[in-house]
């Protein structure tokens, strides 16, 4: 049945009921590099972010920003021969996963942290039925019998609103549409009720109407389970709907962090500002789009100083020599703006005009 939702405004604010001080996931000074034939590609260069239970962090960036690589590092699915993590910590409930044994890491990553990928068709095994794959989570991790696992699988499918779940539990992934497959992937991710979900471009490959359905579902399930959600995307529109706070990445670094409402109205970094100005708005028909000149950076040769300097309209000499640290952003009178940071030497000019 089609729903017309006249009451929904911004989704209900998700409070973080977790113990204060210990975030669910905290990434500290993460570095990831890839050793290729042509040199060392520095994909992630000192990333810090954290997520609390019930909170949604959106990691925003384009190709080469390092957003996906950092998520893959958290999940431990990077190809480690060409990839290396030379430094950094990934703290899950305070414990560094990079220092754990392989077995301990596997236990956390399967059960407590789950990941949803962009292309459900290649993430689901095409030769196994959907019910089998869903049930597998229960059979392997909880030792359930086949019958119980199947019943649980049907329950999960119904939870993610797949119609005629009982009849379709034996179907194969290719028999479902893109949106349905994505829901199945969400169901698989949720099966063991994880504490944290990492969604890597979950709706990029989907149509707009299906995207809305899937994002709605994710938000609802997050509320229900009080999970943390890291949403990785390049779509500023999707972020506005769903996120609590945003981290913008460029060339492997976080260049700006802010609560979601703030960043759209008052960006404090030229890159964020440029991005916001360059996307056409559905509700505004404008003139020529502002285009950030130049191209996304080559990770084999990141520009010195601030990586964004070749493309920045406000670049000065210091930008070419000194890498800006992520600094606290304040109001003009000096009061701290909580949760806001900008890695720009001239963030004051960008923010306050």
């Amino acid at each position, binding site marked *: 049945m089609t*729903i017309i939702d*006249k009451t929904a405004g911004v989704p209900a604010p998700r409070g973080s009921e977790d113990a204060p001080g210990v975030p669910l996931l905290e990434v500290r000074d993460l570095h990831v590099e890839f050793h290729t034939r042509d040199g060392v590609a520095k994909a992630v260069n000192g990333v810090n972010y954290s997520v609390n239970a019930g909170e949604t962090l959106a990691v925003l960036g384009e190709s080469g920003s390092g957003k996906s690589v950092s998520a893959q590092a958290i999940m431990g699915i990077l190809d480690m021969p060409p990839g290396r993590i030379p430094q950094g910590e990934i703290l899950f409930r305070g414990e560094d996963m990079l220092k754990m044994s392989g077995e301990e890491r596997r236990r956390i990553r399967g059960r407590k942290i789950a990941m949803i990928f962009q292309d459900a068709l290649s993430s689901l095994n095409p030769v196994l039925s959907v019910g089998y794959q869903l049930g597998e989570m229960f059979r392997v991790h909880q030792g359930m019998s086949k019958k119980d696992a199947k019943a649980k699988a049907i329950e999960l499918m119904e939870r993610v609103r797949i119609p005629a779940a009982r009849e379709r539990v034996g179907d194969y992934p290719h028999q479902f549409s893109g949106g349905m497959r994505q829901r199945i992937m969400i169901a698989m991710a949720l099966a063991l009720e994880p504490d944290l979900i990492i969604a890597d471009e979950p709706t990029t490959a989907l149509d707009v109407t299906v995207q809305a359905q899937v994002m709605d579902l994710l938000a609802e399930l997050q509320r229900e389970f009080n999970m943390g959600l890291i949403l990785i995307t390049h779509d500023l529109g999707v972020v506005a709907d769903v996120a609590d706070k945003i981290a913008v990445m460029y060339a492997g670094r976080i260049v700006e962090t802010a609560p979601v409402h703030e960043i*759209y109205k008052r960006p404090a970094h030229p890159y964020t500002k440029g991005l916001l100005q360059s996307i056409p708005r559905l509700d505004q028909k404008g003139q020529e789009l*502002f285009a950030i000149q130049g*191209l996304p950076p080559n990770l084999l040769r990141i520009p010195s100083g601030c990586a964004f300097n070749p493309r920045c309209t406000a670049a000065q000499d210091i930008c070419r020599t000194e890498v800006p640290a992520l600094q606290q952003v304040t109001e003009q009178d000096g009061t701290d703006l909580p949760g806001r940071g900008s890695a720009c030497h001239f963030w004051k000019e960008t923010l306050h005009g």
Partner: protein
Amino acid sequence: MAEQTEPILQVRNLVKHFPLTQGIVFKKQVGAVKAVDGISFDLYRGETLGIVGESGCGKSTVAKLLMNLERATAGEVFYKGEDITRLSGRALKAVRRNIQMVFQDPYTSLNPRMTVGDIIGEPFDIHPEVAPKGDRRKKVQDLLDVVGLNPEYINRYPHQFSGGQRQRIGIARGLALNPEIIICDEPVSALDVSVQAQVINLMEKLQDEFNLSYIFIAHDLSIVRHISDRVGVMYLGKMAEIGSDTAIYEHPTHPYTQALLSAVPVPDPEARDHRERIILSGDVPSPANPPSGCRFRTRCWKAQDKCAQEEPLLAIPERFASADTPVAHDSACHFAEEKDVVGATS
């Protein structure tokens, strides 16, 4: 902007059915995927007509039909009064000079084993009458310059360029023969956000400079709105609604358009409060077996018996017939009703 005189392109009842066959040696047709099932629209000189729709609606097939890359099952496409769907051989080749295409994927739309100069110069090899042999290199370099690339790159290979640059090369190739119409099939979907703006700006500049008409096919509604003068919304092989960009985006009357617009995420957390959200249930029906009557009725909240029995015509709905406002535009719905879903900030 558009000159409202004679349309340069007229599409009438264009149909493309892909047969579904059974049997190994002697194939029997058991059905058909009705990818495009009766589309009509006009394109005027110098304007951009946007065609939006979701996957499976048939918009890419429309592009292929207009370019004669697929043979239409039925219907006509009149270019300057002549039906190009019936052409072949030399006549078709001559028409191809005037209607060109820009493809979606910058990574597969350029032959990886040809240099950029060869790629852009190939149109001149195929149509030698457009440029005498001696001039060709110069023309290719001019084209590179026009799309914002360094003419000295003429000997490089596509894989030495970024996605956005490759798309520019594709655009240069499309411009080589001085066409009047360029059909753009999702030209910026595969590009990074910051690069999309560059390419869109370029396309608009070229349109002004060369008085081009664009058919801009995409699924990104925001970009389509930005670049188009008029917009058509497709659903399951048919045109649901068509009108000026203001009409479609601010005064949509077809429920599908309304649902589509309400689903587009807007990069502004505040704007969400002003918008009405319509969540469609279920999946798009299979194009091999579309619903009777109005195709959208299986997902429509307004569907009634009439919708299953009678297919609505694409025409100005009666209730708006007399109105002289943007709301009076073609819409294929028995119960068309205006609804501002976008909540345009004024």
